């Protein structure tokens, strides 16, 4: 009989205990990977930002607008291929204000700059022929032909139970009133890290109806010919407006996204602390179980040693037993987290990309489980291996 099969027999002897311990490790590792996933997802939201796009905002903060006239001046900077407009609308669902989703007023160039990130999967048939900007997907025709048309993400459509062609209402907060929009297209992301929970509509419509034609822009998105010149171009753009009514701050889209993540402040740190507490708690549970399991079998170890099993073999057996429970439980928990949560919808109402748990996090989790197994098995294993046969056989417990 090999040592391994002996370990398995021991594991199966008290099935309930083995199961309970295994399951508590499973639960802990599920949690560990879920927390890791949230941190991964936060990091991911930085990666969504591209290095070849620049974002220009008002130097004071995102809340202040810039004039429309900046568009032509920015577009004239050498190295800038095209410039898109983006304005946060901040409307709410009139039926339930807590049912948050993001809306942005954009211009058609916006869809072209991001054509590698998301695109239409469904669109209304064109009603009338309109002049389309060169290079824009022809399925945008119905959207382009209607002033209050909008494009909605696939996930948001499902969440709100909307249909293509339906008129939906949004209550304006910054630009008050009831804003009806007709859904003329549904987009889906082409990258895993891009969410599908945003509504886009014509900036022109917002400008005419909400801003009385004042032409305020929250963000300019700059598409560059050569990403390597990003820093130079950002400096040129900001220098152009430094003495204007609205000074600007230009950074890569990646830095812009990182700014949002840094706004979460200490929360990621808090999650890390919780993750550590979870790991420590399972360490205790597993160690306690192993100590109990070994104490019960003291006499048996005496018998094994009498039969000629060496101290090192006994030591290995006990450590192995602990490791099998924790690695088994850990692997189940980590894989469960990856399988279940990646499908789930934790993304802060579209602000964060869909949840991803990297294999790296899963592997770290399992490694931690193995370590917990080794540590929790060490003390009882040491005790068992040091046991003198006479003591073991004499001991009544």
């Amino acid at each position, binding site marked *: 009989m090999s040592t391994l099969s002996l370990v398995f027999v021991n594991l199966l002897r008290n099935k309930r*205990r083995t199961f*309970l311990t295994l399951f508590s490790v499973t639960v*802990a590792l599920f949690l560990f990977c879920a927390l890791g996933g949230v941190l991964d997802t936060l990091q991911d939201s930085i990666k969504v930002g591209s290095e070849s796009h620049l974002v220009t905002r008002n130097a004071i903060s995102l809340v202040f607008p810039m004039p429309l006239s900046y568009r032509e001046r920015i577009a004239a900077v050498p190295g800038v291929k095209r410039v898109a407009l983006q304005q946060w609308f*901040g409307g709410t669902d009139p039926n339930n204000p*807590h049912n948050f989703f993001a809306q942005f007023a954009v211009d058609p160039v916006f869809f072209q700059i991001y054509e590698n990130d998301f695109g239409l999967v469904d669109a209304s048939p064109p009603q009338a022929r309109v002049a389309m900007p060169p290079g824009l997907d022809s399925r945008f025709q119905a959207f382009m032909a209607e002033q209050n048309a909008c494009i909605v993400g696939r996930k948001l459509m499902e969440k709100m139970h909307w249909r293509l062609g339906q008129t939906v209402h949004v209550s304006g907060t*910054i630009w008050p009133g009831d804003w009806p929009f007709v859904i003329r297209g549904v987009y889906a992301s082409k990258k895993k890290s891009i969410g599908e929970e945003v509504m886009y509509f014509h900036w022109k419509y917002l400008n005419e109806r909400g801003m009385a034609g004042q032409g305020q822009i929250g963000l300019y998105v700059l598409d560059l010919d050569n990403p390597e010149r990003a820093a130079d171009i950002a400096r040129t753009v900001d220098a152009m407006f430094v003495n204007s009514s609205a000074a600007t701050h230009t950074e890569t889209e990646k830095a812009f996204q990182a700014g949002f993540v840094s*706004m979460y402040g200490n929360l990621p740190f808090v999650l890390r602390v919780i993750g550590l507490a979870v790991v420590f708690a399972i360490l*205790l*549970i597993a160690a306690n179980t192993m100590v109990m399991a070994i104490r019960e079998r003291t006499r048996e170890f005496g018998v094994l040693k009498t039969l000629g099993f060496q101290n090192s073999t006994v030591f290995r057996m006990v450590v192995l037993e602990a490791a099998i429970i924790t690695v088994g439980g850990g692997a189940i928990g980590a894989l469960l987290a990856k399988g279940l949560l990646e499908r789930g919808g934790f993304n*802060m109402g579209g602000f964060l990309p869909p949840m991803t748990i990297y294999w790296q996090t899963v592997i770290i989790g399992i490694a931690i489980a193995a370590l917990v197994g080794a540590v929790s098995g060490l003390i009882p294993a040491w005790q068992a291996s040091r046991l003198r046969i006479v003591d073991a056989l004499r001991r009544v417990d």
Partner: protein
Amino acid sequence: MAIPLSYNIRNVMRRPVSTLTTAVGVGLTVMIFIGALALAEGFHTALVQTGSPSNAILLRKGADSELSSGIGRDAVNIIRAHPAVAVGPDGRPLVSADLVVVNSMPRIGQPGSSNVNVRGVDITSLALRPAVKLTEGRAFTPGTDEVIIGQRIAKRFANCRVGDHIQLQKRTFTVVGHFAGGGSAFESEIWGDAAVLGPALDRDNVFQSVTVRMRDPKSFDAFKKELEADPRLQVQAKREDLFYADQSSMLTNVIRFIGVFITIIMAVGAVFGAMNTMYAAVQQRTREIATLFVLGFSPLAVMTSFMVESVFLALIGGAIGCLMALPINGIATSTTNFQSFSEVAFAFRITPGALVAGLIFAAVMGVLGGFFPALRAARQTLAVSLREG
């Protein structure tokens, strides 16, 4: 007849290592539970304390935060003259028309920058906010480029010491003081004279909110009705404390949800740990239990006794958890409140209620973890038990 409590206590104490590891497992869960409650409570309190129940705040109709609001100077003057508004000792109405913008500022000690609320106020309006007191330096002089900074963010952002300079648009402002605000979100803001900040930020004739002290807080409903019906104003009124409580709702709910999610999962693990320990206790004491039966104790008494033991064990854990959680009370942290799009610094706040909730939570874990082992003890048959042990 019940088995004496001291039997359980002695049993728990006889196995100190096993008791301690199980209890600490439960304790860690309770600690995280209390910590999550303290985080949510701290944030909630910071915002709720910002508002006073005797003040009313007016925003533009449809606006859900100060940032999305805008009220013209004419409307402010109409509100100022309303008879329901209280009057200060100097005979002027207690009204504060605030200009609120967010300014992106670099943090200290952490990479990146975050948004800080900048509030332009009228210096006489400080009477509306009695909690606001200077802790360092002096108040800003009206009409000058001076600002004061809430003490909570003064340490978290660059250029916030007294004597430092802050750039807003093309104007440079000098920091002349720090102020406390009773733990409220005001402590995370920069305050200056609205009459100076307005032109500096190109917001000359528009304010974001108007806060008024009510002559009689009970008359709020009538006041609200009248102002909201006035077509010249286009405003909505809220009681100030309710407004700020509302501003905290999203993040508070997210923290509570995540906290409950984490602790429930952890609790499952801790319950399993407790179960293991209790099963082992039952198993080790097979003969003892049989003896109890022989002495005439009923199965129910035995079962109750083991449940009590399990709950006792868990309560030790709960107490450890409370003790471990206590040091986080008062630790300051900060995050962005996406409802107001600005940074709010606040302190973890452990309430007696949270500690009690933690202990109850521990007791529930004890009940769940002890039930099946206790049932097993109660169901033992005498003959087998005496022979096996």
